[in-house]
């Protein structure tokens, strides 16, 4: 159980670093807010139209925000030269990824839950009755973004133009997540809201596939 | 023979893509060959000194 012990310690470290400054969270929240406001100019945000386009634009803004937010995840370690120390400190390198991706999921989920009421007010959709189900969709979707996102953050940290490379690597790969979570969300925002179990299952499957891949190949991502 | 021009266009476009790609590979190849020659000359000059 050294994996879990290590992971919890590292997760605590990640969360403490972020909540000390809250840099990442505040900038991401403002970014999503800007995107949501700008999107309102591209169509007429009446109730019907919002039901049709709202979920898609919400998830698109989450995806773009995530591709920016995941940037410093490994860059910070690289800039401070702490990655090799981190690797020596843990038994299984997978715990580094597990901690980082859990932290990223928490950050994403926090910003999304914060933005949801603002989105609902601005676009006239009702979320109160389906809030717990929405959080479930948000959780599975954010996990799906965070798993490959954390892995690719380690890849893009090695490249030039890394600020552009991460979205470029991540966004096409996240096509299934975008489709599944948009469909699940629009099912909940429809006139007769219903939980789309099939899409939730799909999201869970996506998470499992990439978590397994990360478990198998994670140690190679940490080579220097 | 309706749409024959479309068929011809598709085959021509396919052929053109492969042709341009092959040309680009051989062009990159020849610049690299020149580079190899240059570097080899540079290295042999350096070692004779």
């Amino acid at each position: 159980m050294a994996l879990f012990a290590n992971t919890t310690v590292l997760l605590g470290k990640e969360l403490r670093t972020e909540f000390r400054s809250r840099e990442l969270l505040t900038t991401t929240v403002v970014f999503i807010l800007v995107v949501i406001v700008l999107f309102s100019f591209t169509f007429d945000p009446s109730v019907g139209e919002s039901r049709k386009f709202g979920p898609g634009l919400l998830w698109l803004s989450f995806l773009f925000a995530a591709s920016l937010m995941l940037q410093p995840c490994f860059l910070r370690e690289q800039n401070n030269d702490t990655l090799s120390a981190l690797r020596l400190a843990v038994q299984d390198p997978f715990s580094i990824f597990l901690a980082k991706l859990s932290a990223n999921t928490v950050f994403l989920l926090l910003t999304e839950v914060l933005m949801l009421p603002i989105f609902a007010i601005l676009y006239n959709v009702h979320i109160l009755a389906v809030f717990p189900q929405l959080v479930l969709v948000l959780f599975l979707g954010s996990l799906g973004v965070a798993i490959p996102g954390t892995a690719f953050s380690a890849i893009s940290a090695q490249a030039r133009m890394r600020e552009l490379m991460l979205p470029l690597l991540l966004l096409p790969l996240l096509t299934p997540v975008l489709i599944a979570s948009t469909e699940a969300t629009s099912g909940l925002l429809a006139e007769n809201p219903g939980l789309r179990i099939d899409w939730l299952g799909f999201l869970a499957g996506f998470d499992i596939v990439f978590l397994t891949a990360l478990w198998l190949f994670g140690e190679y991502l940490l080579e220097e | 023979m309706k749409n024959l021009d479309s068929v011809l266009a598709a085959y021509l476009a396919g052929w053109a893509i492969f042709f341009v790609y092959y040309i680009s590979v051989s062009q990159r190849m020849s610049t690299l060959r020149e580079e190899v020659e240059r570097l080899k000359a540079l290295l042999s000059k350096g070692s004779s000194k």
Partner: protein
Amino acid sequence: MTKSIARAAVLFALIAATAYLAFNYAPIEKSMGVIQKIFYLHISCAFSAFVAFGTCFYANLRYVFTREPKADWLSVSAAEVGLAFISVVLVSGPIWAHPVWGIWWTWDARLTLTFVLGLLYLSYLLLRSMIEEPDKRALFSALFGIFAFLDVPLVYFSIRWWRTQHPQPVILGGPGSGLEPRMRVSYLLMWGALTGLLILLLSARYKLEALRASVEDLRREAEVR
């Protein structure tokens, strides 16, 4: 050099022969007419592209576990050649779709998958060009390639489940069991010719990558002096 020219000439003759067969020997399809002849090129190219990306995935895995530079050369060659084939698929598809469906493009599962696949391997090549150090470039791009390939079935199924809820334009089964014999001969020959082209392009690109690696070695040696 003469050997490669000879090989290219043989291949060119093969492709010319298949084109002749496709146009003159194979019958004209009843419901679609002459436009169906694009399929010979389109389907064979799609097949070659998938073979190329499969090769790339295999080479990526091989590199991660063995660290042979050769596996890296194979993976970059396969990705690039696969992209060339995918672009032929993406160009010939709309040329066929426009007269038949009346639209150039529809976001059908197979079309979208092809497009996303092309995008993924485009970012793979871009990533390679953004990492300087050869070992790092090989390792990290291989890891990205593995993740990207794992995504392919997920993309396909997500789009299929999603779009089946909407009405489709015409859905065409692949060249199924009821294929006319002369059509089958034309398909087989075209498929053979394009597989030959795949091998030719792959080997040319592979040689290029090997040469580039030796240039990088020479450059490093020159810098040391």
